[in-house]
């Protein structure tokens, strides 16, 4: 198999894994949200990569262009980006409330307080 033909996808897999790792391994709630953000953005990068046609151009119709990249993944990802920012803002609102209620946003400290 030609390495270059799947290079993009493999890099994207690495990005997803890094984001996913931050979500699971970090105890700071804001850091978790950041990790989630990276994870989602990496999925967006994957989608957009699948829509690319080498030699194509942006899908804005024009009489002197023959080959366009696939517009459908773009549409889907526009929606997904909005979903991502919506999730982030709701998550941050929760974090602010948690901070007000517990005085901390570290998972360990919160768990300790909850047990008491």
């Amino acid at each position, binding site marked *: 198999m030609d390495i270059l033909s*799947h290079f993009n996808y493999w*890099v994207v897999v690495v990005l997803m894994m890094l984001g996913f790792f*931050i979500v699971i391994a970090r105890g700071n709630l804001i850091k978790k949200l950041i990790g989630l953000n990276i994870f989602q953005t990496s999925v967006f*990068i994957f989608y957009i990569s699948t829509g690319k*046609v080498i030699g194509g151009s942006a899908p804005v119709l024009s009489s002197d262009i023959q080959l366009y990249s696939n*517009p459908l993944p773009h549409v889907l990802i526009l*929606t997904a980006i*909005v979903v991502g*920012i919506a999730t982030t803002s*709701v998550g941050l609102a929760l974090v602010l409330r948690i901070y007000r209620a517990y005085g901390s946003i570290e998972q360990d400290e919160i768990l300790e307080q909850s047990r008491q």
Partner: protein
Amino acid sequence: MELAVNIVLLSLLVTTAAALVLVRGLLASIMLTSIYGLLSASFFVIMDAVDVAFTEAAVGAGVSPLLLLLSVAVIGRHEARNAGARPLFAVLLVGITGALLIVGTLDMPAFGRADAPAHLHVAPRYLLLSGEETGIPNVVTSVLASYRAYDTLGEVIVIFTAGVAVILILASGTHRGSARPHSAPVDTKDPHTILQVVSKTMIPFMLLFAFYVQFHGDYGPGGGFQAGVIFASGIILYGLLYGLPAICRVIRPPVVELCSALGVLVYGVTGILSMLQGRPFLDYSVLADDPIRAQQIGIMVIELGVGITVASVLIVIYYAFANQFETNGN
């Protein structure tokens, strides 16, 4: 040449993500997130996804770092060192997921091939016929706002839900709504004179630019969502420099909250109009006699709905967060 840029951008993305894994401290993490957003936006440009790049630049490098910074302003930037009790578990889980992903990529069509299945089935119709069917050169806009308009309604509802959720979560006491401006927050000893003067000249142009993006989306990158984000950024910039009470006097929280619902209703009612005339929901053909004209009117109206909702929800979220800062942070 394109390939080289591609590889450089991807390696920068990996570096940024790796730095995010290693770095402790929230402020640095937020900056890296912002860089990550900007890099992915640049990557999207290389991939011909200009609309997505625009949005990602506004969201990934703009709005989400802003919200993160507002939160950190309340909470503090400290990140505990020993946090993250189960790194081994995380490595295991991530390893399995990664392996599954790699397995999935093995049978994928090669990157960038014009004969990949995804480019042969549904998309060609958009590229070939959307010009005739909607009269709009930007295919992304016509797919977004006409062929898959229902998804976009869902998207608007998602952002509206986020606004409702943030108010619901952060509401306190007997007050209903996002902001309750009280004390004077602007530090009179240390006014941001330079920032205020410069931004005062720029904000009108930002708002103007938002309108340009709103109505130019048919012909180039842009549209309701991006316009809404830019409009909200102008307002938020004013709020950051002059304080929450000042901006709340100009743009009152209850009004913005109503506007966030109004945008959704504009969108929904457009769809219902078609139903009343016996066509499927969101079928624009009833809006005018000429089908192309009808499509254009429909797309313009719903993009307006998107813009109104996005701008007002972002402002509402900013109010709610900034209000936390002013009651908690000081």
